[in-house]
């Protein structure tokens, strides 16, 4: 068979799609408010509410740590989930139900380049948001990071964003309409934030809720970032347990997304 389209072009196609995914996301006012402004506001709120006086502390893995560090790290995890899971699944459902994906399928585009572009977009946005949250943490709430902690945060952010993005793609297969996506994405993130030690410091949660939280992927991400930022273990905060759990979730998401992802509208009349 002829190979009229050179494979080297694929990278360019990915970059071009990434570029326009970013352009489109920055123009989506609802996405900007909900995915970028919202976690920043929450960070400021939580840190202001729960720290009368500068040094309110909480127990975290048998260490006494500042709640501000816990909230700053937790909010970073929440922001990653909002960008990579919630926003991504809403974007994908919207594009599928409006026929944009069907249209793309009618071109010679390789499907993986499209998926890659949107995962890259999600990871880049997650990184930008984590940097912004850590800067606010540092400048306003005096949350300081060591070089090792920064490395750990970088690894968790990249891994967490990629894992959440595959899960966002996977869950899209089970969401029939844009309305459903607009509820499922944010609602899931909010519920998980409560039981994964993001909105409520993990030590305060009843055991059964904390155990429930540990079933889902936000918990290892939040726990990992909190370990890094609080520096409880010293170093990077990377643990085999958290990294393995995240990888397992990512693998599951990848399998489901690869098998079930739909390109044509699924809603009424399809």
């Amino acid at each position, binding site marked *: 068979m002829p190979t009229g389209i050179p494979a080297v072009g694929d990278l360019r196609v990915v970059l071009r799609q990434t570029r326009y995914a970013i352009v489109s996301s920055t123009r989506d006012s609802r996405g900007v408010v909900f995915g970028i402004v919202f976690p920043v506001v929450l960070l400021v709120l939580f840190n202001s509410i729960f720290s009368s006086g500068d040094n309110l502390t909480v127990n975290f893995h048998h260490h006494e740590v500042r709640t501000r560090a816990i909230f700053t790290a937790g909010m970073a995890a929440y922001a990653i989930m909002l960008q990579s899971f919630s926003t991504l699944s809403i974007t994908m459902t919207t594009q599928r139900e409006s026929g944009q994906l069907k249209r793309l399928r*009618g071109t010679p585009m390789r499907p993986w380049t499209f998926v890659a572009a949107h995962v890259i977009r999600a990871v880049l946005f997650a990184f930008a948001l984590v940097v912004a949250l850590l800067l606010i943490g540092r400048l306003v709430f005096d949350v300081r990071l060591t070089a090792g902690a920064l490395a750990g945060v970088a690894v968790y952010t990249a891994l967490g964003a990629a894992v959440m993005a595959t899960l966002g793609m996977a869950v899209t297969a089970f969401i029939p309409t844009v309305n459903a996506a607009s509820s499922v994405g944010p609602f899931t993130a909010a519920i998980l934030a409560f039981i994964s030690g993001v909105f409520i410091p993990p030590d305060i949660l009843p055991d059964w809720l904390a155990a429930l939280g540990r079933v889902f992927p936000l918990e290892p991400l939040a726990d990992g970032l909190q370990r890094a930022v609080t520096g409880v273990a010293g170093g990077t905060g990377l643990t085999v347990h958290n990294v393995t759990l995240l990888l397992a979730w990512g693998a599951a998401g990848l399998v489901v997304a690869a098998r079930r992802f739909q390109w044509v509208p699924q809603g009424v009349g399809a």
Partner: protein
Amino acid sequence: MGALAIEVHDLHMRYGAEEAVRGIDLEVGRGEVFGFLGPNGAGKTTTIEILEGYRLRTSGRVSVLGVDPAAPTREWRDRIGLVLQECELDPLLTVAETLTLFAGFYSHPRPVDDVVQLVGLRDKRDARVGRLSGGQRRRVDVGVALIGDPELVFLDEPTTGFDPAARREAWAMIEGLKALGKTVFLTTHYMDEAQHLADRVAILRAGRIVALGRPTELIDGVENETMVTFRRPEPFDLAALRAWVGDAPEVAGDDVRLRTTDAQATLGRLLAWADEHALRLERLEVRRPDLEEIFLGLMSDRGLPGDADGDSGRG
């Protein structure tokens, strides 16, 4: 490369018990503009989606640009442009951004600004797609279909929802495609559109082609004749007129209509009758049927023996 862009033989499509397409045969030559007509539910979209590679057929042989669309390849998609029904583009990207994005998927895309020009959106080049009118958005759709410089373009109801001016512009654009040597497969509800644009048309009813040919051939092939109409004069005696002209006149609202297979003789007798009675024939009109009337004739049950049973067997 064969001379045919599309070949379909005995195409069937069944959804459960319902048979949406019941044995279609057609051939579309390269460089031809082919009109595919029919009411909603006739199987138009099912057929076009099979040809586009979106749907797997139940049975039959199909070849589009020499490839079976049931096994679409990237090389094949590289040669085809699509305007789909109910497929939007990202409303947050501009016209030029959208075309640039899609240009990246093709091996030899046309320059973005050429396409912007071709679809008449130079003024809207940097406007977001979501802020365009319906007609302008449809033109972006057509632009996206053309960006890869395809050999064959599928246009599924490209002017639905257009105002008359926008429709005329779209027609000029589609004529431009023909001038570029593209093969165009067009579905439409609008008979005047098909009559204006298509080299040949197929009329589909309940999953079967009930007429196929050049629009003029279809019109000539209809036994029903020329229509002569004029405003009913006062006083008017229908029986007297019938006796005079021979053909059966009928009254329709304010008008009197005469169907005739020999317009010259009928007109002669009609004018003699008017002279004799010193009547003035207001709004006198002599008209050949257009594709719309052929279409309506084919869709009504008369003249289609053996098809009514097909309808009752559905679902």
